[in-house]
């Protein structure tokens, strides 16, 4: 290549006004006499145009709803904390005006309840690929078995960040002989389904991670890898509260 030619970096810098005066002058002089570099320079200019022409699709409705539900759940958690602390202060000081705040919190709870319900319903509909449009208007069916194709075990493992992959690899093969959790809360069900998005997990372990309560969910992503998600105690359908997420090689049975 002719050493006087300008590469893409130099041409992009020139176009953006990043070259000092001397360099810019010599680059412009070269461009005047070199069709090849002018062509490259035009390529650079076209990049901006091509990028600007890519349309941005609107946010899908389900994403908007999911975010609304997550914020509603967060508002509920905040309201609970507020109402507890205000209760305490009401008792301590005997002041009545705090009750107003509690009233506001209770109102939030009602709204939030509806939002969370909507979130669960939407998720269930999308997970099952259901065409049943009445699903969002009817109360959830009493039979939950079809939405829980997984068992929550308690391996008693104290998972740690540094050894997470190895520990998961060791626990999965023996998961069937591990004690299952007595009952699975609706929150945990929603949490796991939110993470697995319909896939069947190879392990759901109610254990600890870095000495804190956590649920370890392992889902096959393809034949060769597992996705390992560590969910915190607040994990729910609306907020996975992911503490850690990694991908490890799948262990073949």
């Amino acid at each position: 290549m002719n050493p006087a030619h300008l590469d893409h970096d130099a041409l992009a810098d020139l176009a953006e006004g990043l070259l000092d005066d001397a360099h810019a002058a010599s680059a412009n002089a070269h461009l005047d006499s070199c069709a090849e570099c002018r062509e490259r320079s035009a390529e650079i200019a076209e990049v901006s145009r091509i990028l600007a022409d890519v349309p941005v699709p609107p946010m899908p409705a389900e994403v908007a709803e999911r975010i609304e539900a997550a914020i509603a759940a967060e508002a509920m958690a905040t309201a609970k904390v507020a109402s507890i602390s205000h209760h305490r202060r009401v008792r301590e000081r005997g002041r009545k005006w705090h009750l107003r705040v509690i009233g506001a919190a209770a109102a939030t709870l009602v709204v939030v309840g509806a939002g969370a319900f909507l979130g669960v319903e939407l998720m269930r509909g999308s997970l099952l690929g259901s065409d049943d449009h009445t699903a969002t208007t009817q109360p959830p069916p009493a039979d939950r078995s079809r939405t829980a194709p997984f068992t929550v075990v308690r391996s008693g493992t104290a998972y740690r960040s540094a050894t997470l992959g190895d520990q998961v690899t060791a626990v999965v093969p023996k998961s069937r002989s591990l004690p299952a959790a007595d009952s699975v809360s609706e929150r945990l069900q929603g949490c796991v389904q939110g993470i697995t998005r319909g896939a069947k997990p190879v392990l759901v372990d109610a254990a600890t991670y870095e000495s804190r309560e956590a649920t370890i969910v392992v889902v096959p992503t393809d034949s060769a890898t597992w996705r390992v998600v560590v969910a915190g105690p607040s994990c729910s359908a609306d907020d996975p509260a992911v503490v850690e997420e990694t991908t490890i090689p799948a262990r073949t049975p």
Partner: protein
Amino acid sequence: MDEVSDKELLARHAQGDPHAFGQLVTRHRERMWAVALRTLGDPEEAADALQDAFLSAFRAAGRFRGDAAVTTWLHRIVVNACLDRLRRKSIRPATPMGDEAKIDALAPKLPDPTDGHGTLLDVTAALSELPFEQRAALVLVDMLGYAVDDAAEFLDVPPGTIKSRCARGRARLAPRLAHLRNRQARGNVQDTDR
């Protein structure tokens, strides 16, 4: 009827108004979605990042200082949430972009599906090969049309840094996207290989 300012809404939220934050979200979510989707190149990742971002904003509202615009503050949070997502997923192999369903979710079908779809595929794939800093700068400035000064504020770097990241990114994308330009420009394309 949306006469209340962003700052006022955020202040009301910080004072416990249960509806104020939702209004802020509704007002800005499309813009934030565009930023997250184009920065991450994957609608599921973008949805996750955006949820993370709005929750952080919800919690951090009390710490918002009035010296910046609320939109600047929100953009910063969204960009950081995208970066966090990428860091968390960094062990994973690069996102496969061949999945038709994903491509469909990235952009609506265009009148000419071969051209429009192909362009989006190429652009998304080429962008995904750039370092995060260059990609974020190009997404903000070239794709979404933000001023360099605004992008600099969102990414918390001087404007000169944004310019140089954009230039570096364009230089890397130019050879990758040249065929799109030639396809549209003219037939007498001569290869510039020396």
